[in-house]
């Protein structure tokens, strides 16, 4: 413990100079702006900044890149809350609870709660990264495809909570999402499924789907219903933008739980942060005294997943730093950056380049504090900018959706995808089909399928593997308990309803 603190202190002494502090601050701001643009996420942000690091020292370069990475996580929630256009999968829950708050004229509160939750979640994640990274990584490598498969199934089980009242509609949305996810190369066999056009060989870009489904779908719906925002004139009363004591009290435990969940599940490669966000949402809804408020702007439904999302950033860095395994697009580019700086990612990284890694971790801690301050101070700017453009929001969001889709890989094809899923989103919203199950299926179904097939392949066709491996068995029992509890709760509720006169 003392060694760890001494190493961290050494990292701080490396970065605490005006040049590096300014660099981290600017990197966080740039990350926030890039993350707020539809279609651009951590991968794009880090890739854009990479050329700037060529002439820098290792410490300064890594501070810049990690600052951008963290900043994009903060920025991603802004468009999700303000214009219902999430930039990545974890931000879907942010849109689900944050956008209704914005429509109620409480967008400032939503941004404030989300910034604070992101900060605390990020801090919990960083604490785990600093003190427990080697231990966590040691256990993480014992997880095989069977455990990953069951974790994905647990993630998918949250569909029940996102389903709404009509079971047919939820099942149709889920199965439709699974089918959409089957496009492109099959990772196990290399077989190209439904490659009707060359662009489809890589599958349908998930970000284009969410831009269409949420962003453009919302534009079509609002234009048809002639819905216009009425947020009033621009104002600069700071009290409107900071969470009050009640909101802070409501969000305290969800944030703590989300932070722990986000760090532990965020370590998993692939969709760790997404699964953690949805699990956090499910958990908060289960624990809430007013679950009926979820979907209409529940503070705890926003705070928990936001904390979970940002806790996943340091969480995803744990396997990268300790094992050299990138868990997401952003960390994959970070891996490239580490190699570019002449470092060797993997178990020897902390031994050979410990000073640089500790400086990078110190930079993340400082960046997290800067980002809280800058994001809270920028809330009035974001809200008043929205007030200025609220009458023209439909055309502006349409413009951002088109440009965001094009930016994914500089291709018109993704704009077609946005149009198609814009129409789907509009029709789903018009007919009360839940979009949550659809999007969760799109994200998790391919991973679930791959892990399942890998498991069966490794076990040479046997299904015993799910009960012979201890962690796998534990997860299976947990899954059965979740399903049993859900069914029991519904049966009890139905009986109570039947006996009530």
């Amino acid at each position: 413990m003392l060694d760890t603190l001494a190493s961290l202190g050494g990292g701080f002494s490396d970065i605490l100079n005006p040049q590096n502090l300014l660099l981290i601050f600017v990197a966080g701001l740039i990350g926030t702006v890039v993350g707020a643009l539809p279609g651009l996420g951590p991968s794009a942000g880090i890739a854009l900044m990479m050329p700037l690091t060529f002439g820098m020292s290792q410490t300064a370069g890594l501070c810049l890149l990690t600052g951008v990475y963290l900043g994009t996580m903060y920025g991603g929630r802004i468009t999700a809350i303000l214009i219902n256009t999430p930039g990545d999968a974890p931000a879907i829950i942010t849109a689900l609870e944050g956008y209704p708050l914005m429509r109620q004229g409480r967008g400032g509160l939503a941004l404030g709660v989300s910034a604070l939750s992101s900060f605390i979640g990020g801090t919990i994640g960083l604490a785990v990264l600093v003190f427990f990274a080697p231990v966590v990584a040691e256990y993480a490598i014992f997880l095989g495809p069977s455990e990953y498969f069951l974790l994905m199934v647990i993630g998918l089980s949250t569909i029940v909570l996102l389903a709404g009242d009509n079971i047919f509609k939820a099942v149709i949305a889920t199965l439709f999402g699974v089918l959409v996810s089957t496009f492109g190369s099959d990772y196990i066999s290399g077989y190209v499924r439904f490659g009707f056009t060359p662009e489809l060989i890589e599958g349908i870009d998930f970000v284009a789907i969410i831009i269409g489904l949420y962003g453009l779908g919302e534009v079509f719906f609002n234009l048809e219903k002639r819905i216009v925002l009425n947020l009033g004139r621009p104002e600069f009363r700071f009290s409107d933008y900071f969470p009050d004591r009640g909101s802070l009290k409501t969000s305290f435990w969800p944030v703590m739980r989300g932070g722990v969940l986000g760090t532990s599940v965020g370590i998993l490669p692939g969709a760790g942060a997404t699964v953690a966000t949805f699990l956090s949402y499910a958990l908060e809804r289960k624990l809430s005294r007013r679950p009926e408020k979820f979907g209409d702007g529940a503070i705890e439904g926003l705070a928990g997943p936001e904390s979970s999302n940002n806790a996943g950033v340091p969480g995803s860095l744990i396997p990268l730093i300790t094992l050299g395994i990138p868990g997401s697009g952003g960390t994959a580019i970070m891996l490239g950056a580490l190699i570019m700086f002449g470092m060797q990612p993997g178990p020897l990284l902390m031994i050979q380049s410990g000073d640089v890694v500790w400086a990078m971790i110190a930079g993340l801690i400082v960046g997290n504090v800067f980002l809280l301050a800058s994001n809270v101070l920028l809330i009035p700017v974001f809200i008043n900018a929205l007030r200025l453009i609220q009458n023209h929001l439909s055309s502006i969001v349409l413009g951002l959706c088109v440009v965001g889709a094009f930016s994914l890989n500089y291709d018109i094809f993704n704009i077609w995808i946005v149009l198609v899923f814009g129409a789907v989103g509009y029709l789903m919203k018009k007919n009360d089909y839940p979009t949550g199950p659809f999007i969760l299926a799109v994200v998790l179904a391919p991973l679930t399928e791959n892990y399942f097939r890998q498991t069966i392949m490794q076990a040479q066709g046997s299904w015993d593997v799910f009960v012979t491996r201890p962690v796998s068995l534990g997860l299976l029992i947990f899954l059965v308990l979740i399903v049993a509890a859900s069914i029991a709760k519904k049966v009890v509720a139905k009986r109570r309803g039947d006996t009530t006169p």
Partner: protein
Amino acid sequence: MKTSEIVLLTGISIFAGVLLFNSLDMPFSSGMTFGPGFVPLIVAGALLLTIAMKVLHGLTPRTSAGAQVEMNDSEDRVASTGDAAPQRARSHLHAGLGIVGLMGVMALAIASMGYIGVMTPLALLMILVSWYFAGHSLIRSIGVTLLVMLAIYGVFALWLRIPLH
């Protein structure tokens, strides 16, 4: 069922049908595990079955209480009661057709982007949305669109170097 729901379910059914047909050519199993055709075939079949059940469920006569709930849920049916019903129904239809028209215009704009770049068709589309659909004056629509396009060009093309034109 509302017309828009019929359109949605028909579209999803065609999509599932095409994928089901194509997945018949894919290996259902490979070696000791499932093949690439396993998930699409099963899921497409299940989706078509669920849609059929949903349609049948929608056509089944309901009890009076259930029918009342259904009527309250559906805008179309609400629109079909009362004195102003025909006018409201026409208004809904007009608005719905307007969105279909907008989707058509957007498709044309996207098709033209391959020849003349993203910026010009997008600007025209934004002006149309602002002027015709959002009800702003033409001058105001053009002015706001130009400002937004300038901002988009500055951020995406100049700063991020994304080739928008």
